[in-house]
């Protein structure tokens, strides 16, 4: 059965994700979190600074919370990634098995390619 399209423009379907044109990293890339300790509002937890992980997914581009916190509009939006880390790498004294992982969101400006690492197999997007 054919239906005529409604004349009014449809509202865009809601999505968790937004586009991230020009994203620097791709799923599976090995990255390092900047070993930097700037003052002010940051959403990169202290415990992950300087650690290495793998891009698990690209979330999209969002206004920078480090600017929003002070009344600025946070534009231009920054690409946000989810990064996966091995717990034994993050915590030297980690008591659980080596297979345990931790994931979090990291903005692109906190990321650099992991030094001297070749691309490994793609991180699975097991949700």
């Amino acid at each position, binding site marked *: 059965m054919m239906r005529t399209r409604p004349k009014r423009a449809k509202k865009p*379907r*809601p*999505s*968790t*994700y937004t586009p991230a044109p020009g994203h620097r990293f791709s799923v599976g890339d090995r990255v390092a979190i900047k070993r930097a300790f700037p003052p002010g509002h940051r*959403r*990169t*937890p202290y*415990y992950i600074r300087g650690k290495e992980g793998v891009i698990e997914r690209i*979330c*999209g581009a*969002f206004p920078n*919370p480090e600017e929003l916190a002070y009344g600025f509009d946070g534009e231009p939006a920054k690409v*946000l990634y*989810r990064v996966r880390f091995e*717990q034994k790498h*993050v*915590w030297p004294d*980690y*008591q*659980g*098995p080596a*297979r*345990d*992982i*931790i*994931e*979090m*969101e*990291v*903005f692109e400006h906190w990321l650099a390619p992991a030094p001297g690492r070749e691309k490994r197999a793609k991180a699975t997007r*097991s*949700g």
Partner: protein
Amino acid sequence: MTNMNDTPFDYYADKKHDHTHGHHAPVTGRDEGPPSEYEVMSRAMQELLEAKGIVTADEVRRRMEIFEQDYPYRGSRVIARAWTDPAFKRRLLKDGKAACAEMGVDLEATRLIAVENTPEVHNLIVCTLCSCYPRELLGSPPTWYKSDNYRARVVFEPRSVLKEFGTLLPEDVTVRVHDSNADMRYVVVPMRPQGTEGWSEEQLAEILTRDTLVGVTVPKARSQKSEGRG
């Protein structure tokens, strides 16, 4: 009218079973005892904002009602749907916000990522930096989620934390912790337990208590009311 500080319990688990233990503190309730400095401050700020026409008492009251009567019941319905409809589950895992919208669940500003428990992987959610939580899906977070001890410990000793909640995982299961530190919010899709074959979505929703959707416990195929915690 019961003082909410008397007996700790999962208010929402109770309500799902529709038991009337007299614990239903209505939104128009009152706290007992003299107010703290911060309660006075909060009320004063609200009144000043009302007087200046920035918010109305009605708007705030409506938000209280939504947090009380609507939000807390959504998550279990969505996950129960995922348990009964594999195609919906795939869509939920692919794009949480879109899948909720399908069900008429409007997450407003929240961007939801659903993470699935499997025999190989157990997921656990935290916000170490504050208390980020998918409020439009699950309601307000429990006090333990917002506590300093949970925020500090679950990232570096998740198995020990799980044990405190009575959850023991085999060593060959991967524990996958999610620190919801930026724009995404998370919900766990637990494994559907044995003994729930043929259950309706409503019955399944009843065992999908809040704790199971954050990942500190796993759902069990029996009534939760004996546990006293959801």
